[in-house]
């Protein structure tokens, strides 16, 4: 909302600076975003008189003028406008002056003739649309005076961000009321001008139009006024300037008046060309489902039965509260006008405006609520202004239907409650004075519980809390003291806290220590990516209104996001990546309250160098053992038992791929990304991914409780064995077989070497077995005996032999 200080001063005598006003309004909850000087460029535009005009010797369309700007020397100016004439008072831009578009005027030579300035059009000065001819000034002005002075355009305009609850501040009057309250100034509300309010001019308006309202909920008040015999033309200069100052384009006297009243009172109006209305009837009724209607912007709109229309005796003529119809628009030839001043249901207007993507100054205000009691005043003022600017005869009175009058809510205001909420004691007299200045009717007979009636323009004041906010706001929220609350807490509350954040913190600390870099990807990905990644077989959760096709489904796995991160880094030339992400994924679950489960996942991605690219590290590339090592390291970090890794033949993203299983539960997977997806990520080398179920890990960690085990008292004895095994024998089978022997003394078996002799289909696996007795030292003999026994069992149970 733009607030013109000149306009404001019509209502309240604010004499301070624009900057101070901006600060105070901001601290009152009306945030001023910028201070504009819309006509500042007119400072250097001065009044001049055309003393002489003769044709340019070299160009038919140009004139040579001599212009007097009240100085000793007159200015020679070459002018291209057809309407320039001797004797005219004109607006002159001297060399050095700037036009509204910022273009600076210089002394030039045009076809051999010197031109020391420019005679300006309205468009060039930002004072109107007219660019055909120069602006001719009507009236008597001193030569050389600035246009800023003669038209009183030295204005400041504040651009104010008005919160959605403050519909009343979408008008000069509403803002003036706030200024008056803040600065303790009087507020002068303009009334309809009695001298223009000639009631004898014609028939009664109510006799000439019948108003029917189908549903009072949707339209509690409809007023119509009629003026006949008007002349459509430009509105007076002062009105055009006011509108221009706040960014409104002047159109014609009648339309400008409706805009002027909208800006001044916050009451939207609509003017119909009465000649285009059929019958002498106005009906406010819903649209027919599927009906089409052309709004005055020329666009055809398809309507629903929930949309509200204004109908004449035959047809719809306006989309109520949003935009008029093209079929009844005021044009240059209009002579009779029917002026609508109504109140519409905010929700109804909002639904229509949102659905059609059609927001107007009118709908914006109706959505936020307009002042029903005040709309009669606005109507009267509008009619008076139309008559003043467009002439004509006004029918007597105003036709009105008000099936539902506005009732102020009765609010109890307790000063003690205000103190309790605000944490500061405000004097009752202060509260009362401010509430009254804001327009409330205050009855403080009961000093503990005042009865307050808010005004019709403050639809946001409904409850005591709203009034407490008002007195707090007037006192200044920034002047309330700062204290620390005593935070009492209950024991059962503490126990119910979710430790998820803590667990994720633990995972993140592990990853940090592991030399992984955290990434955060969008939760949405494209359905195309899902297809590319073969993830489209499961039902995914799709957005109904995505911003783009790139982000239209929620990811059912972290991997697609990680692959995006890899891809983006590759395009930047970051070829070695060690990434991790912790986030929830989204799985459809119709039984869940929100239709989805959001399990927590950890994703890992490795590619490029195994070690930092620096001496003394060897230059090696990561392979499967690196990503699996990360997974093992994490499980070890969490002191979880060893996982089982089983080949997964059917994984959408990875091949080879292994399922990670913990105590029989699926904890995730780890693998090498398939070549076509690696290509998609611009990777030629290996790219390895892992994804783990953090909820499961957290559950298995059991709130992170670790148990102490006594340290062994007796020394271990170690024995190595080297098995010669066929290549297709999984190492896990060797381990399982060893464990299955349940050898009492065996404490640990570690693979210390794996050697693949060239040209043979066999692997040499060297295992180091640790034996220990808990109660005594072992003798070499008994270890040897046990060890050999184990070796013999292996050769019988597995296709292995010993060298």
């Amino acid at each position, binding site marked *: 909302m733009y607030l013109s200080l000149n306009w404001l001063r019509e209502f309240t005598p604010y004499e301070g600076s624009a900057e101070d006003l901006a600060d105070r309004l901001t601290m009152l909850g009306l945030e001023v975003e910028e201070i504009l000087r819309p006509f500042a460029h007119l400072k250097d535009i001065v009044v001049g008189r055309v003393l002489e005009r003769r044709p340019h010797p070299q160009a038919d369309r140009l004139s040579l003028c001599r212009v007097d700007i009240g100085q000793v020397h007159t200015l020679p100016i070459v002018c291209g406008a057809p309407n320039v004439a001797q004797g005219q008072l004109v607006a002159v831009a001297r060399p050095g002056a700037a036009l509204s578009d910022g273009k600076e005027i210089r002394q030039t030579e045009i076809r051999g003739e010197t031109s020391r300035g420019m005679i300006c059009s309205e468009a060039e000065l930002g004072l109107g649309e007219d660019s055909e001819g120069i602006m001719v000034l009507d009236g008597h002005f001193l030569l050389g005076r600035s246009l800023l002075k003669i038209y009183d355009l030295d204005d400041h305009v504040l651009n104010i961000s008005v919160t959605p609850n403050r519909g009343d501040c979408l008008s000069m009057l509403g803002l003036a009321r706030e200024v008056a309250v803040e600065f303790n100034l009087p507020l002068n509300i303009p009334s309809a001008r009695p001298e223009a309010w000639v009631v004898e001019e014609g028939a009664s308006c109510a006799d000439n139009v019948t108003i029917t309202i189908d549903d009072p909920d949707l339209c509690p008040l409809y007023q119509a006024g009629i003026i006949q015999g008007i002349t459509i033309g430009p509105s007076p200069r002062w009105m055009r300037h006011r509108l221009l100052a706040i960014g409104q384009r002047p159109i014609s006297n009648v339309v400008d008046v409706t805009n002027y009243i909208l800006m001044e009172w916050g009451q939207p109006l609509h003017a119909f060309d009465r000649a285009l209305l059929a019958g002498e009837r106005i009906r406010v009724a819903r649209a027919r489902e599927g009906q089409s209607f052309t709004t005055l912007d020329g666009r055809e709109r398809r309507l629903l039965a929930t949309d509200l229309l204004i109908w004449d005796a035959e047809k719809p003529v306006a989309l109520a509260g949003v935009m008029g119809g093209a079929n009844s628009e005021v044009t240059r030839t209009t002579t009779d006008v029917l002026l609508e001043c109504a109140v519409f249901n905010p929700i109804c207007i909002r639904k229509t405006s949102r659905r059609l993507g059609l927001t107007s100054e009118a709908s914006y205000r109706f959505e936020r609520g307009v002042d029903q009691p005040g709309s009669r005043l606005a109507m009267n003022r509008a009619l008076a202004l139309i008559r003043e600017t467009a002439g004509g005869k006004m029918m007597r009175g105003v036709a009105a239907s008000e099936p539902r009058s506005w009732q102020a809510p009765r609010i109890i205001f307790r000063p003690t409650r205000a103190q*309790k909420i605000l944490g500061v004691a405000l004097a009752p007299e202060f509260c009362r004075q401010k509430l009254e200045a804001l327009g409330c009717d205050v009855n403080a007979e009961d000093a503990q519980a005042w009865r307050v009636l808010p005004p019709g323009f403050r639809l946001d004041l409904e409850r005591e809390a709203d009034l407490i906010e008002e007195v707090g706001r007037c006192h200044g*929220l920034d002047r309330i003291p700062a204290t620390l*609350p005593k935070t009492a807490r209950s024991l059962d509350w503490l126990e119910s806290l979710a430790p998820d954040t803590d667990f994720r913190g633990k995972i993140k600390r592990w990853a940090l220590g592991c*030399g992984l870099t955290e990434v955060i990807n969008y939760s949405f990905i494209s359905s195309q990516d899902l297809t590319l990644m073969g993830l489209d077989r499961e039902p995914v959760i799709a957005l109904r209104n995505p911003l783009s096709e790139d982000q239209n489904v929620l990811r059912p796995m972290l991997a697609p996001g990680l692959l995006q991160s890899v891809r983006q880094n590759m395009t930047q030339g970051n070829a070695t990546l060690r990434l991790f992400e912790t986030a929830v994924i989204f799985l459809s679950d119709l039984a869940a309250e929100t*239709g989805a489960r*959001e399990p927590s996942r950890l994703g890992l991605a490795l590619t490029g160098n195994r*070690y930092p690219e620096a001496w003394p590290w060897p230059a090696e590339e990561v392979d499967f053992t690196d990503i699996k090592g990360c997974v093992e390291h994490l499980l070890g970090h969490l002191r979880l038992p060893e996982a089982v890794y089983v080949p997964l033949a059917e994984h959408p993203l990875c091949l080879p791929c292994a399922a990670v299983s913990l105590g029989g539960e699926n904890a995730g997977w780890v693998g090498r990304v398939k070549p076509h997806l690696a290509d998609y990520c611009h990777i030629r080398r290996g790219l390895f991914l892992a994804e783990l179920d953090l909820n499961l890990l957290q559950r298995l960690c059991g709130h992170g409780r670790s148990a102490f085990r006594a340290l062994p008292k007796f020394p271990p004895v170690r024995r190595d064995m080297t098995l010669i095994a066929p290549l297709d024998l999984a190492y896990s089978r060797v381990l399982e077989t060893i464990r299955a022997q349940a050898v009492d003394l065996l404490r640990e078996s570690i693979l210390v070497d794996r050697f693949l002799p060239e040209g043979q289909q066999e692997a040499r696996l060297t295992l180091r077995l640790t034996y220990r007795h808990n109660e005594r030292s072992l003798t070499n003999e008994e270890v040897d005996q046990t060890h050999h026994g184990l070796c013999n069992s292996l050769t019988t149970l597995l296709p292995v032999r010993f060298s």
Partner: protein
Amino acid sequence: MSASGSDLGVGLARDLAQDPAQDLDALVPELEASLTAAGSEQELEAVRVQFLGRKGRLAGIMSGLPKLALDQRPAVGQKANQVKTKLQELLDQCLARLERDKERAALSRFDPSLPGRSAWQGSLHPITLITQEICSAFVSLGFDLVEGPELETDFHNFEALNLPPDHPARDMQDTFYITENTLLRTHTSPLQVRTMLRKRPPLAAIAPGKVYRRDSDLTHTPMFHQIEGFLVDTDVSLADLRGTLTAFVHRIFGPDTVVRFRPSFFPFTEPSAEVDISCMLCGGTGNCAAAPCRVCKQTGWLEILGCGMIDPAVFTAVGYDPEHYTGFAFGLGVERVAMLKYGIGDLRMFFENDVRFVSQFA
């Protein structure tokens, strides 16, 4: 031939005849001379073989022992042992010297400026770092962490927060919908509702998380991070909110930061306020070295969070008696704090995940 042969024989005989004890004594200075020349372990070994080897000088002298008179033999034998010990001692000393030299030489080549075998550096995303910092500030003020789903119901995200359908304030939060009734949460405020539905006051909690709005341009990303905080008890006032947030701002931005409370509007709080802090770049003056400050756009203030006293309608929606309980709530954008703290200019960098960017912070 015979003459020369006899010469040799005579010479040997004479040597032996002379005095083996004397010969033995001569070995020591000879060895000392040889050792001075020995510069390496190989040379030292050669010297050892020359003197103490099976066919060395000592062995040569000792081989003449049987020719001596019987009474002379013990003395010479004893002498020989002494010399042998001495020789061994000299050799050992020489070996020790050589080792010392070697070590010294090695030390002189030691170059600690060569790189160490340093492992990969890990890094946490700036959003994680700032979230942790903010949460720990509030945890130290007595707030507990809570979490909730990112996919929400209309009830938790809007209705219970005093945002009925078709409320104009829903415009402030352009929403991604999944179904008519479910959506991606547009703020972390549903956590207020969920927590209050689950628990009775007193409660003080903080809820960090991802939120989503249907908006994407230079200053908006469709996903970002918020931290919601709220405290409910029987006697909580706006002054307590001011105190809590002032303490928080001083923790995060330093004790000299000025905090400003400006009235605003949120449907779920009443009164509502926006909190500005003095611009850390220009110190609140609006200008940096006579140039307009680009961070605060010359206002001297930076908007940092929204807050207010929990609206009675929210209490009613969760079944609390709004006459009995009062409370405050606040919400802040993590990206915004991270940008201010780290001096990051471009919001979109947070989710491009360029490792050169995300690994800059600690």
